[in-house]
């Protein structure tokens, strides 16, 4: 029942949406596709669903060439980022719609729809029209309809993006529970949010400009991002990337002074390279460090994000708690050099810091 994609390529009016997508999606596992807006995530889902033709490539499941199977025979459910329900049907009939199309018996339809609505917490809303529900409830209806079908493939296209923050967190928690019951379906979930991708995914697929740039378990991708791009996509705030050079066992960050390479980077060859550092691995100091100017301060409540420019390089420092830093302040920034990632000048990962409770 593995869903196998080989070399899927799609371009629309000269713009490449998918480039050579090759994937094996195994049943019973949840795949989160993370990437920035326009990375090709939605295109990928639309192709997997059969809503979009491809220019090249193959897509097979159970030995069937899915590209030859029209959408309505695919056995694929999808949840859109907009809350798409049938406006003329009430909540129960919305969920029952695909079951009735599949010619299930009336009793089966009733059981499955009721069960599915109970799972998403809408047992008391059977008779409402979608327009009489809040946004979060509407998305629950869409989700219940998708779950009730027990499809081979369940696709979710940024299902939480249009919800407010609190609701998003709440539904994200529930998703883990809901997906654990999908048995042998392939679940593909796209998102732009690191937390969502990490929390929900058994495997994370990182997309950038229509390509898959890395796949792996959340820990693998987080601990060893294959490129600087992945490192920036997978970290929130994005990983700080600092150009530098290595000469004779010493490193130089941009045009700051040279220092000895930290132990884990000892084997680095001479030449230009890039260093990566998570925002959490920078801190402010009162006595020593690199001089930087504060350009922007965000306080989320439990954390403070200080945007600084050090020697012309913009960086983000993430601090616990609320700190009194204001725009234009000159600050001293210390970096944990044992947490440095090293990338080649082209951006490929050379060395990642060993993982010691890193996250």
């Amino acid at each position, binding site marked *: 029942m593995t869903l196998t994609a080989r070399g899927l390529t799609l371009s629309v009016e000269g713009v490449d949406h998918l480039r050579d997508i090759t994937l094996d999606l195994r049943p019973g596992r949840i795949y989160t596709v993370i990437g920035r807006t326009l990375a090709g995530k939605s295109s990928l889902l639309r192709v997997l*669903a059969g*809503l979009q033709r491809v220019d090249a490539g193959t897509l097979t499941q159970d030995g069937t060439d899915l590209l030859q199977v*029209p*959408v*309505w*025979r*695919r056995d*694929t*459910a*999808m949840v*859109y980022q*907009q*809350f*798409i*329900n*049938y*406006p*003329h049907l009430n909540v129960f009939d919305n969920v029952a*719609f*695909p079951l009735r*199309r*599949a010619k299930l018996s009336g009793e089966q339809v009733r059981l499955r729809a009721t069960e599915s609505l109970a799972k998403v917490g809408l047992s008391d809303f059977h008779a409402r*029209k*979608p*327009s*009489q*529900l809040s*946004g979060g409830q*509407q998305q629950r209806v869409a989700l219940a*309809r998708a779950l009730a*079908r027990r499809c081979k493939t369940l696709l979710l296209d940024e299902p939480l993006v*249009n919800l407010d923050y609190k609701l998003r967190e709440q539904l994200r928690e529930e998703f883990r529970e809901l997906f654990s019951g999908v048995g042998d379906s392939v679940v593909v979930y796209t998102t732009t949010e690191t937390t969502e991708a990490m929390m929900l995914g058994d495997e994370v697929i990182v997309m950038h400009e229509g390509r898959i740039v890395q796949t792996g378990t959340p820990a693998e991708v987080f601990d060893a991002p294959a490129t600087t791009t992945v490192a920036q996509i997978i970290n929130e705030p994005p990983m700080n990337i600092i150009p530098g050079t290595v000469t004779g066992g010493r490193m130089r960050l941009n045009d700051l002074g040279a220092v000895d390479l930290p132990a884990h980077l000892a084997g680095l060859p001479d030449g230009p390279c890039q260093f990566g550092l998570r925002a959490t691995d920078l801190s402010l100091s009162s006595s020593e460090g690199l001089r930087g100017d504060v350009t922007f301060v965000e306080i989320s409540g439990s954390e403070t994000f200080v945007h600084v420019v050090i020697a012309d390089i913009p960086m983000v420092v993430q601090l616990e708690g609320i700190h009194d830093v204001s725009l234009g302040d000159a600050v001293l920034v210390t970096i944990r050099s044992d947490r440095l990632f090293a990338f080649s000048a082209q951006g490929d990962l050379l060395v990642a810091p060993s993982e010691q409770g890193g996250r």
Partner: protein
Amino acid sequence: MSRAYLTFKYAFIAVWASFVAGPFVWALTTSFKDANGVQGGATYLPWVDYKPTTRGWQDIFGGEGGVNVIQPFLNSLQITVLASAISLVLGSLAAYGLSRYTYRIGRMKNADIVFFFVSQRIMPPIVLVIPFFFLLQFAGLLDSIPGLVIVTVALLLPIAVWVMVDFFNNIPREIDEMAMLDGCHPFAAFVRTILPNSLPGITVAAMFCAVFGWNDFFFAFRLTFTEVQTLPQAVVALNSSIPPWWTLSAASLFGISPLVLLAVWVERYLSRGNLAGAVR
């Protein structure tokens, strides 16, 4: 809201309403008059100004010296209902196609094709009537109800397509896609999810069709002779050298009444509210 504004507002509405309703009131009172009641100048109050009589109404239902409007009424009804139904079925399918798929005829794209449909109505009818005459003659359908139905469909279809393309364009495509993912063939998706959510649009289109179909005088006048007479023709036929105003008024009111009833009945389907909540 100042008092002066409110006074002005309601005065304006009252003047406008009487301007619109005036002719109908006039026709209604006239239809209950006879020659004496009409010739003495404007009179309005029954039993005070003039002596009401039902002669005009008797005349149009086969009374002596009048006309029988029943058969023309049935003819008009058949033509309007059939032509509207055909136009709505063909029109909604065409409109759905134009709304959801991309077509190209030479250099014309979807929007141009839609405009091409509407442009059929920009031409003056007199240009169309001559070819229609020869076509119907060729098919042996002159002076027949099927002939008039075909011609009326040709007149109504552009309106139906135009109204409904716009309406379908406002229904998110994701609903069709969802229906297909949920196991509907594209045609089933259209019938089961798009049509039920287009009731207001279909109602508007149906209303247009009914009004234009029912009121057509020109084509019926040119394309029929003795066998088939439509209601507008029957009304106009009363217009002799000394028109019997009371009969004419009664026939006019009788001719208008189906559309008025239809408008009242249909009004409830015109709200767009149902679609709210389809998409955030």
